[in-house]
């Protein structure tokens, strides 16, 4: 078991390093030049001489490998360098944006799981086939809804038409409602689909009639036997989608004008602010790797058969 944990943690570290390297190489290969974008504006009146001095200051003159090692070392120490766009430390900009996104992502994910569980279990419990069919069609609909469109639609309906949620101002909780909904709807779909399929599949297992033969009710069978077996594949999918939340928040935060990591990413891409982009890439992969590590470690707890294999 200890070996299993150590191996998983080691793999996670490896994935992180690979993500950092791939991110660094890709950003380095990008044709744009962030220094030029910011400083070539004639109004600043900088000479090519001065621009190349600025470049050297940001470490742009180093050979690629030195730059890579320098940046990697910085990341390991927790220093992400300076934003070229604003000149402030990347850490500061992240620290500013992260809490907003963390709130949004956590609430969105929780809501997505809730929606998925309600859909899948209602479908598993229902005995009328049209209701079941209708419930199972919902995830396909959800997954086809583009986030930007859903966001605009929600603002239109709830803020402008019904006036339920203020567009500007309002308490932090009120401001969260619509973006959370926008984020939750599309990511609930794959979880609901896998969970519903898992429930169906567990129902065909021979142990289900045996539990029924003990005199168990439908509810007892669903919650005490089917649920725990069906949740395993859905957990994997949930772990993967959580990682996508960072990407999903780009659109949502832009639509709702929230200053989070998604917004920061968008700005950094526009300004070709390489240090910020690299930090976002590493942050996103860290979240992804940690969540999936947690899922991996949870698996043997939920399914004792995997404990032996681990």
């Amino acid at each position: 078991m200890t070996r299993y944990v150590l191996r998983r943690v080691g793999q996670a570290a490896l994935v992180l390093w690979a993500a950092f390297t791939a991110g660094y190489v890709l950003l380095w290969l990008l044709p744009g030049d962030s220094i030029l974008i910011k400083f070539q504006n004639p109004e600043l009146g900088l000479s090519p001489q001065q621009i190349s001095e600025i470049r050297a200051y940001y470490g742009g003159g180093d050979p690629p490998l030195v730059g890579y090692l320098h940046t990697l070392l910085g990341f390991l120490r927790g220093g992400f360098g300076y934003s070229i766009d604003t000149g402030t430390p990347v850490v500061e900009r992240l620290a500013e944006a992260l809490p907003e996104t963390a709130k949004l992502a956590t609430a969105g994910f929780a809501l997505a799981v809730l929606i998925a569980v309600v859909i899948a279990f209602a479908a598993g419990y229902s005995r009328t086939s049209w209701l079941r069919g209708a419930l199972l069609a919902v995830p396909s609909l959800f997954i086809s809804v583009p986030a930007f469109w859903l966001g605009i639609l929600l603002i239109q309906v709830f803020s402008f038409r019904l006036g339920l949620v203020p567009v500007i101002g309002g308490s932090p909780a009120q401001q969260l409602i619509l973006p959370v909904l926008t984020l939750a709807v599309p990511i609930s779909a794959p979880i609901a689909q896998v969970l519903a399929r898992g429930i169906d599949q567990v129902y065909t297992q021979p142990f289900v009639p045996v539990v029924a033969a003990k005199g168990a009710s439908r509810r007892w069978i669903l919650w005490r036997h089917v649920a725990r077996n069906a949740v395993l594949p859905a957990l994997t999918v949930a772990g993967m989608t959580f990682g996508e939340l960072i990407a999903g928040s780009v659109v949502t935060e832009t639509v709702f004008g929230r200053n989070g990591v998604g917004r920061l990413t968008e700005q950094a891409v526009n300004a070709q602010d390489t240090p910020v982009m690299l930090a976002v890439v590493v942050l996103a992969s860290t979240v992804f790797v940690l969540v999936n590590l947690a899922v991996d470690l949870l698996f043997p707890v939920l399914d004792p058969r995997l404990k032996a294999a681990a």
Partner: protein
Amino acid sequence: MSLLEVRDLAVSYDARRAVEGISLTVEPGEMVAVVGESGSGKTTTAHAIIGLLPPNATLDGGQILLGGTDLATWSDRRMESIRGAQIGLIPQDPSNSLNPVKTVGAQIGEVLRIHKRGDRRTISRRVVDLLTRVGLPDPETRARQYPHELSGGMRQRVLIAIAIALEPRLIIADEPTSALDVTVQRRILDLIDDLRAEFGTAVLLVTHDLGIAANRSDRLVVMKDGRIEEQGPSSQVLSAPQAAYTGQLLRDAPALSVREFRAVDEAVDETVTQEPAIVVRDLVKEFRVGRRPFRAVDGVSFDVRPGTTHALVGESGSGKTTTARMVVRFAEPTSGTVTIAGAGTGRDFRRHVQLVYQNPYGSLDPRQSVAAIVAEPLRNFRLGDRAARRTRVRDLMERVALPESLLERGPRELSGGQRQRVAIARALAVDPAVVVLDEAVSALDVTVQAQILDLLEELQRDLGLTYLFISHDLAVVRQISHTVSVMNKGRIVEFGTTQRVFTDPRHDYTRELLAAIPEPVL
């Protein structure tokens, strides 16, 4: 009054009748066996009694009287009070009949919790008592274990403990031992007999195995195509069957037929000294389980003469299938050699040695037609042009006695016996000299089994095939093979002609295996 009386029961699946007006009774403390082949409606009948028909089934009519109350009219909700408390169920397949993520103790205790018999402490004490009663050593530890940590036989004991927990008046045992090894099978049936005597519980035993039914039951009900062909006291039904179908079942049941042994000298011309078709020497296969190596096959040697059948017989885990896989080169031996006379190397090896698997459904591609399946080996080896292949497929279909009309059908539309014939036709397509049959008839009903065995004998005679026949079923082995190796824990414990091994067993393990086959009753 009878404990259970079923009157004119009719059940259909998606408007297709599966059980057509059957009536039967079970008296208190009695064991009644319902015998029939797959599709006879025996399991449907059993599930209807306990109210556990699948959603696409409907009860079209009839009464199910338990102690005079008609359960057929009861709602699902109301049936919950009967299930487990008054009617217990011992299911078919112990490997999947327990929830894999719950401990054994929790699953036994559950039936007490559902029916609210006692608090947590009383229940856990009762669980240990029950585990002791069904003969599991160290019950406290067992209760904390998960199903995958127990053997098949132990799991079936756990399922029996669940069935008897509330001492129901009736237990429905649906093929309770068909997934178990013969020696385990006997012990489980003995346990059910003991419990029946102790609690006075009646048992409705559903089985395809006439041998078991004959040995254990007071009365027999023979079913076919959803109807009862015959019922009566077991001894009477067996000694003087009234229905023609019962007679046929009795003849086809390998455990009960007393056929001549197949002798080696009939199949082999002694005047010509032939080299053996298969020579296996000191075969060893090790697997790594965690850190320690495990010897699945441990120094196995045997010879098979051309044109004869050699059987590898043993229980699960004996290494017989691993040996077969090494013979057909699907697994690499750790050490030792397999020599097959006349076999080429690489892909050509497959033209000489073919394999027929146990599961005739799983081994046929459901998306291909029968014609495409049988022709596939010919296409793979580029034998003949399109027209020649078509002729060859027709010949093969005729060989295995399948009508040409099946050629364009898919495997899904065939019966189990037809599927296995297709698998045999495919194996014979490239004219192999050696065919390895891995539990090739184990999944088939007795009547179909008898037909396939006859077909295999005929093909052997006509084509001079050499068979390596892997089976756990001694009765089948007795019928088909010339020579036998009895395997136990990776080793061959006894080798000899079938006649010698079956009439004069020398090893204790062979004797134990033979003693576990239900006695011939005729």
